[in-house]
């Protein structure tokens, strides 16, 4: 038996949540020890547990991370008003953790009132990261700016913010000098440039600065000069009439930014200004040009100089030729993301095909993570990719037209994706598209033993497909499905599996109201939420499929903040007495 101090010291080396969770299961004394020294809490589903329960177990927390809406909310599949309100959490943690330093939220509804509480409750508050959140305005930001005297990080990633004014930035007091990271890229309103410049000038530790679109290109050099220590820089709109003096100043400022490793922004790019960044290309480990609507030659010229690039996010304007250059020049590449420039256009005038991905998989031996949008794919390409890169951990392929077969053989893409899961044994995340039958799910169930998250759309033939996945994928925690002919049988047969997962989303499938009710009745550890906006939903018979169902494990029982289009099935007292 080790004395507590030794155990505590040992635990301080355990940083991952899973390690800590495992350690706490060893024995009662380890549980007790661990809970008193846990500083960071991560809750992957805000409805899986009650804030009070968390607080009771972990009294000394300094950092809280919460996630709210299901992932498909990013694609507008979760109607507004569904939930994910952080307010109840904020109220409790404000009371319980006066020394809290960090809050990280993803896909949650955050109101100005929440931000005001945060601003006023935590004396040593340091880090606020809001990713894909909504519900607040620039007033809330102003409250944070004005009151969080020790703030280090204010990171707004892809949030929907009500823009009341740009003055929020001016609320940082003159005495405020601790800023290390500011990401305001998602905001639309113009901030006072002089306030911004003064803020940058008095923040010697500023490492990350991601501007929003309204900061003009002429002003960039001023900011870069004020912050030569910057590591991560996001420009504003990168466009203007080409003026030699502006260009020279900008190029000069970039060349002096010796610490710059990451670039992003580049809205509305004027291609003639792109060469200004050439001097830093070889330093870059991360480059996001996904807002740069410029053609392949410009993009290729840039990436050809990025010898140390590890992460590239780009539009399909890069085309196969550009990706070929990537495969030859960016030998350290770990992550590739290619977004579609115009997802809805029928005529494909961008020359990006499966070949681009194949060449990157050939040339970039460290490639682990792929998100790729394209218009065509073949089994042979997928097989090549899987053989080139067995070290893939995340493979997300979106062929823009649903149910499109192998463009060469016209067969389903089962074999191709099967090869991916068979060869890439460390694969933890997979998204599939194209024409897929139940067979691909058989492959997945057989081989994808490390798969943690799976996204399926417009695929499969029958319940057998879903059954393969639920019964075979031992590590599966998140499953999201849309528009597949999966129904009650597979779901009910694998009900116990659902308690081992964080969540299951099924929309536009064949799961009936009756099955949802039964599942909710039988599984007290699950919330079975039927999300259905049809007007006559209360009069539909039980065999009718629901529009959407979201099932997640929880220890806090059903929630009471649901809108009228969400029903938590099988939890009414009447239902419980009606077990058939």
């Amino acid at each position: 038996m080790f004395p507590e101090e030794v155990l505590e010291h040992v635990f301080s080396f355990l940083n991952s949540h899973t390690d800590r969770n495992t350690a706490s299961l060893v024995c009662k004394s380890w549980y007790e020890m661990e809970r008193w020294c846990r500083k960071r809490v991560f809750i992957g589903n805000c409805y899986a547990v009650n804030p009070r329960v968390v607080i009771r177990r972990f009294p000394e927390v300094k950092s809280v991370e919460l996630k709210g809406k299901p992932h498909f909310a990013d694609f507008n599949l979760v109607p507004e008003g569904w939930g994910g309100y952080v307010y109840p959490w904020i109220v409790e943690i404000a009371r319980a953790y006066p020394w809290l330093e960090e809050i990280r939220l993803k896909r949650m509804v955050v109101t100005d009132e929440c931000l005001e509480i945060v601003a006023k409750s935590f004396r040593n508050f340091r880090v606020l990261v809001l990713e894909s959140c909504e519900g607040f305005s620039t007033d809330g930001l102003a409250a944070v700016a004005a009151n969080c005297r020790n703030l280090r990080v204010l990171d707004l990633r892809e949030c929907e913010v009500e823009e009341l004014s740009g003055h929020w930035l001016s609320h940082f007091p003159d005495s405020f000098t601790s800023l290390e990271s500011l990401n305001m890229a998602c905001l639309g309103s113009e901030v006072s440039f002089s306030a911004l410049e003064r803020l940058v000038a008095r923040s010697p530790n500023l490492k990350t600065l991601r501007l929003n679109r309204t900061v003009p290109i002429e002003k960039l050099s001023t900011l870069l000069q004020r912050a030569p220590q910057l590591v991560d820089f996001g420009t504003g709109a990168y466009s203007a009439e080409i003026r030699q003096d502006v260009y020279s100043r900008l190029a000069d400022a970039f060349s002096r930014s010796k610490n710059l490793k990451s670039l992003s922004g580049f809205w509305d790019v004027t291609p003639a200004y792109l060469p200004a960044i050439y001097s830093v290309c070889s330093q870059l480990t991360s480059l996001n040009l996904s807002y740069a609507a410029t053609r392949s030659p410009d993009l290729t010229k840039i990436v050809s100089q990025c010898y140390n690039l590890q992460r590239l996010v780009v539009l399909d304007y890069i085309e196969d030729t550009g990706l070929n250059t990537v495969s030859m020049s960016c030998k350290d590449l770990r992550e590739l993301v290619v977004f579609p420039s115009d997802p809805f256009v029928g005529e494909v005038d961008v020359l990006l095909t499966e070949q681009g991905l194949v060449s990157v998989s050939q040339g970039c031996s460290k490639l682990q993570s792929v998100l790729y949008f394209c218009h065509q794919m073949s089994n042979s390409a997928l097989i090549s990719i899987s053989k080139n890169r067995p070290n893939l951990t995340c493979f997300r392929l979106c062929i823009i037209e649903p149910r499109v077969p192998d463009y060469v053989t016209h067969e389903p893409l089962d074999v191709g994706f099967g090869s991916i899961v068979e060869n890439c044994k460390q694969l933890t995340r997979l998204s599939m598209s194209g024409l897929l039958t139940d067979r691909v799910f058989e492959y997945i169930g057989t081989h994808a033993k490390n798969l943690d998250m799976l996204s399926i759309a417009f695929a499969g033939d029958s319940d057998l497909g879903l059954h393969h996945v639920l019964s075979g994928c031992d590590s599966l925690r998140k499953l999201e499905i849309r528009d597949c002919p999966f129904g009650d049988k597979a779901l009910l047969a694998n009900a116990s599996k659902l308690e081992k997962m964080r969540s299951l989303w099924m929309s536009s499938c064949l799961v009936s109201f009756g099955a949802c009710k039964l599942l909710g009745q039988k599984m007290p550890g699950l919330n079975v939420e039927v999300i259905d906006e049809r007007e006559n939903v209360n009069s539909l018979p039980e065999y009718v499929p629901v529009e959407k169902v979201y099932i997640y494990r929880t220890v806090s029982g059903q929630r009471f903040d649901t809108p009228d289009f969400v029903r938590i099935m099988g939890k009414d007292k009447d239902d419980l007495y009606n077990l058939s």
Partner: protein
Amino acid sequence: MDVTLGLLPDSPAGDDGGGVPSGGSTTVKSILTKEDNNKNNMVMCSEVSSSYPVGDQNLGDLELGLGLSIGGGGGGGLKGKVVAGGGGWSQYARILTAKDFKQNSCSSSSCSVSIPNSATDSVSPTNGNSVVGWPPVSKAHRMPSLANENKSPTGNRISVTEQTKSKNRTVVINDYSNEKARISDKKYRSVKVNMDGSLIGRKVDLNAHTSYEMLAQTLEEMFFRRRSSTEAAKSSRLLDGTSEFVLTYEDKDGDCMLVGDVPWQMFLSSVKRLRIMKNSESNELAPRFQESHERRRTDVV
């Protein structure tokens, strides 16, 4: 936390009446066969332990229960029992063969099963219809292309009014024309709406509406939960003064104004947030209230 299921009222302790679980903790193989179109028997074996060797035989008739487990994987897990489940789960707890799954199967190229809100047709944009949320690109990464900047919006994009009609809810989904409007200088037009007496504020996208009537109907659905289509035909109660609430807004100057006085476009350009105010409080409105009370009857779009 140890979750015990105790599903069936008549199952004694120790008897996993629900049959063998199909999750990763079982010690019995679950074996399903499937006959594909070419009549090649494919035996899919999801092996979870090596207790039972697998032959090449067609094991489609093996009596394996694939029901629910008892306990969170612990509690003796699996006793290797081959049980036909009893009680209410019998229909699910018995063997599942390919026959069970065949009912919903369809040919791979087209699915004739009716799936709610699914696109069973091709989603080629030339159809004039986009599918909600497809392709899966988040709002932040949807952007106008170079190629399209000079084109006028085609029938590719669902108009927002169509979307609103089909769903009775205001959600801006896949509305590319809105995206372009946003890029071309018009700011994101979602405003906060608070109702007196209600704790949770909502947001409404003004760009998704074309008239006061439409906006009021949306708000009534949001806050008063009125959804029947018969009531939709009547004019909005919020606007005509028959409700106990009135609809007001805060304009650029911070003044509280009654909604409906000015032309719609002018309203759009000056509104900052909306408030559904109790009628009793409406005396605090800007003095125009009395004279505009008469004007509200007319159509202000």
